[in-house]
């Protein structure tokens, strides 16, 4: 579904990602792991067209993404829940969801999708007229995911959804992500919380200082802990 091939990304003279290749097949949950500054966020931003590629190519559903702007990529079913949630703090929960559906007409299925989000996250229904900025961290993460679902994506990319959340809330969020697979969603999940994620991911990639250090089944990464420690430090025990 998503094929990232030999991608490099630069910030001016600084090279953030070098020659990274990554594949996500339909129906998979793929984990993208790595320490701070590894280039995970840069890679997802590039996939959405927010950062230019210095080299390589990105294909989604067989189509070359390089010439498409962000809007066109969202229209084709690619969506990102950004790092730090980035809920619209001055907009209400409903308005946030409305903007999430920016690429779709506001027809009958729009309202059905709002209801679907409220079923998935009952707390958002309660808070529907509250501003995004007034929600707790966990509620904001739920809103960010719900907002992403409003575009009806086929591939959902999540950038560190567990960041700064209490363990109980993290468990809840991860359970939800697993459930999303039943809704015909494919998931690319960026995390530093490697331990938990490797338990339910199908395959995993490890990025460190801009380079790919591992690509393969998630299970093997759990076993080969000692080997991986060398690459990503204390993250995998």
């Amino acid at each position: 579904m998503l094929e990232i091939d030999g991608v490099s990304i630069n910030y001016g003279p600084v090279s953030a990602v070098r020659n990274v290749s990554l594949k996500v097949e339909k129906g998979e949950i793929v984990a993208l792991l790595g320490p701070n500054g590894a280039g995970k966020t840069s890679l997802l931003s590039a996939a959405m067209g927010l950062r230019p590629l210095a080299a390589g190519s990105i294909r989604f559903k067989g189509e070359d993404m390089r010439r498409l702007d962000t809007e066109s990529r969202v229209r084709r079913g690619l969506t990102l829940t950004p790092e730090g949630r980035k809920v619209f703090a001055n907009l209400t929960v409903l308005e946030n969801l409305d903007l999430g559906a920016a690429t779709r007409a506001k027809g009958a299925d729009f309202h059905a999708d709002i209801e679907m989000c409220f079923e998935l996250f009952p707390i958002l229904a309660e808070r529907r007229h509250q501003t995004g900025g007034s929600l707790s961290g966990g509620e904001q993460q739920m809103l960010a995911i719900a907002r992403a679902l409003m575009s009806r994506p086929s591939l959902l990319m999540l950038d560190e959804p567990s960041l700064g959340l209490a363990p109980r809330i993290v468990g809840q969020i991860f359970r939800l992500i697993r459930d999303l697979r039943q809704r015909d969603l494919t998931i690319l999940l960026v995390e530093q919380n490697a331990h938990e994620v490797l338990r339910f991911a199908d395959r995993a990639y490890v990025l460190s200082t801009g380079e790919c250090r591992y690509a393969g089944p998630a299970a093997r990464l759990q076993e080969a802990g000692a080997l991986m420690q060398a690459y990503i430090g204390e993250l995998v025990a």
Partner: protein
Amino acid sequence: MDYLIEQALNGFSIGAQYSLLALGLAIVFSVMGLVNFAHGEFIGVAGYAMFAMAAMGMTDPWLLVVFAMATVTLVALVLERVAFRPVRNAPPTTGLLTAFGVGIILQNLFLLMVSPRPKAVPELSALNQTVEVAGHNFTILQFLEVGVTSVAIAGLVWFLKGTRIGLAMRAAALDFTTVRLMGMRANRVIATAFAISGLLASIAAIFFIARRGAIDPFMGLLPVLKAFVACVLGGFGSLPGAVVGGLLLGLVEVLLIVLLPDKLAGLRDASVFLIVGVILVFRPQGILGRRVELGDKTA
């Protein structure tokens, strides 16, 4: 007492013009961080558009008004496309210089193509007729200024809350990248902001021209400065702040007209800025602005 009531409405109607101009400045600033100092030239564009049409024999005031509004909105869109889009990602000072450049070019166009001297645009002067309401003398224009401005602001509120592009504009004020991530095109959001700022400025321009009955190439200079002051007064970037700041500025101005003896009339603008300065000493973030923590700079 009579005099006071009449002057209060006068203050509101002048303030309404400043509010409309200040709103346009604030809307563009909030979505792209640009203080568009060419904003005042929209008044000139409206004036010369009406002047040109009248010179060609079209003197129906309604048609002139519609033509002026359409022209200004179109010019705002064109300026965004050819002047401001190329410098969108440049440092803020570049945008500011571009705005000054655009303003000077427009002034010189008016000057070269028409005349450096003021020209009469008398078609809207009928609005200055006085009407008597409950024993007070008002002009039709004053009621229109307050009424139309209220409708325009209500329309803007509806637009910002009720349409998706309006939601995007509000969200973009804080986080444009995430708005793009939703699949909303930046070009569309920014062009809409410019169109709205042009439309609001054209309404202010029509009132301005109706009051003066004449146009000149530099007629936009003082109004854009006042609109800028209104924005600062209300809290820069805040839309309600722009409205409140504009109204307050209008009221202060009229108050000074009432209080200052004729001999000191020349000090009116200076006094307005002095009062604004004093208000800002006590509320540096503006009336409705949020306090930005810039760090302690005391030695």
